[in-house]
């Protein structure tokens, strides 16, 4: 047990979709400032695990603490916890009927009750951070996939979250656009942001990750230092997976 409160603490997490058990007892932890990469074959439950952390998926049983707050407790104000957890989706999920700037302001205005001027100021700061200041008046449909994903990251950052969840953020992108998004994620990691990243980018995991978690069949098969796990996987299933993707 570390002295400081874990950013994310998951214990005995089970999740069923109907009769299909997708998560079979997950225990794991993300410390503040840590970058944890979750890898594994499709259907291993890694995205479901990530989505349980801000309860986009309802856990069947088990406990999830976010900064010490039990989000599986029905009494918890979920919306207020969610403002502290930024989430980035594989399909970006920008609001297509709003401009880039409106995308970044809407939750600041409705949830954080910021004034219009303040919301715009925060939005512009985060747009500059992802290098898209000149696109603030554009609609999402007029942006490339990579630009959309960078806007989505800026939207999440505009809520001043304590941690960020990334659900395969580069999987829907053309190969030449992946680098821009990864660069921003690296910059965030360097600034000390707590991050949980479901990804297939082993290079990113090796370079930026503090911890690598390998999942298969709804369980955590192996976890540890990314360079260590990628170089010398101990478990047979990890070896089999890595031999396919590396």
């Amino acid at each position, binding site marked *: 047990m570390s002295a400081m409160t874990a950013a994310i603490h998951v214990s005995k997490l089970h999740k069923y979709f109907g009769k299909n058990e997708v998560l079979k007892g997950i225990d794991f932890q993300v410390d503040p400032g840590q970058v944890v990469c979750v890898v594994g074959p499709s259907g291993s439950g890694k995205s479901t695990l990530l989505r349980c952390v801000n309860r986009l998926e309802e856990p069947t049983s088990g406990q999830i603490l976010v900064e010490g707050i039990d989000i599986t407790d029905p009494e918890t104000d979920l919306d207020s916890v969610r403002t502290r957890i930024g989430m980035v989706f594989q399909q970006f999920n920008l*609001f297509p*009927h709003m401009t880039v700037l409106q995308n970044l302001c*809407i939750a600041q205005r409705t*949830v954080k009750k910021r004034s219009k001027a303040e919301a715009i100021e925060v939005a512009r700061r985060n747009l500059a951070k992802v290098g898209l200041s000149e696109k603030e008046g554009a609609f999402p449909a007029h942006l490339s996939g990579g630009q959309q994903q960078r806007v*989505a990251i800026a939207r999440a950052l505009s809520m001043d979250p304590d941690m960020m969840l990334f659900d395969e953020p580069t999987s829907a992108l053309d190969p030449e656009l992946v680098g821009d998004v990864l660069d921003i994620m690296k910059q965030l990691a360097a600034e000390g942001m707590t991050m949980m990243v479901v990804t297939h980018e082993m290079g990113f995991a090796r370079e930026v990750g503090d911890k690598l978690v390998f999942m298969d069949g709804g369980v955590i098969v192996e976890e540890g230092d990314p360079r260590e796990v990628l170089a010398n996987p101990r478990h047979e299933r990890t070896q089999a997976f890595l031999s396919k993707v590396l």
Partner: protein
Amino acid sequence: MRRSTKRYLRQGGLYAVLAAVVIFLAVSVDWGNVHRNFWTPGLGDNWHDLILTGVKNTAIYTVISFALGLALALLLALMKLSDVLVYRWIATVYIELFRGLPALITILFMAFAVPIAFQWHAPGGTAGAGVIGLVMVAGAYMAETLRAGLQAVPKGQTEAARSLGMGPVATHVHVIIPQAFRIIIPPLTNEFVLLIKDTSLLSIVGAAVGQRELTNVSRDFLSSGSTAGTGTSLAQAALLYLIITLPLTRLVAWLEKRQQRAR
């Protein structure tokens, strides 16, 4: 026989049938009588004023029924998608009931039976009560359209809004409903055209002279003035309806095409 010859003969046959029908009608129909019935001049001095009032009232009744019907439809659609079983149940019963009844029955009920049964005076008298009947029917039809639109908004949109901490109300108001409306603009415009035509049902419930809509006004002229006994006033009303509805149906077609291209 060669294939091209066959096709030539078949097309020739079809033209021959058409020509025969046209010739038969031209010879057998008393065209003078038809012309007298549909287009006798001299509807009277007050025709212009009254028919313009009729067009104005048709427009007012359409806009009121559409606006209130849409609000009712949104409520019903949200109820139908609610987590609460009883809400879903009430919405389903309402929608099935008022789509199952002829609109005319609902209008007559609202105009004559309901005010007496509930000791209720509708704003605008019988005509107003009739409009409320139309609102109830329009709401039921548009509710299904709206429900489909709400469900057509990708699930990722809700997830993105909720992950930003937006509650269910803010998510609907700012994210889901605006996108649903974009999706259903073509069918909704279509509902609007149907509603223009359905306001003619209000002609049955009797209204003060200044409250009468297009069909009602033209019906009055069937039995008055020098055109009495002819369908002239009906024919002119029909033309006016077409002048309003045809551009709108073209608009619907254009909107649908544009939306398909956008996908």
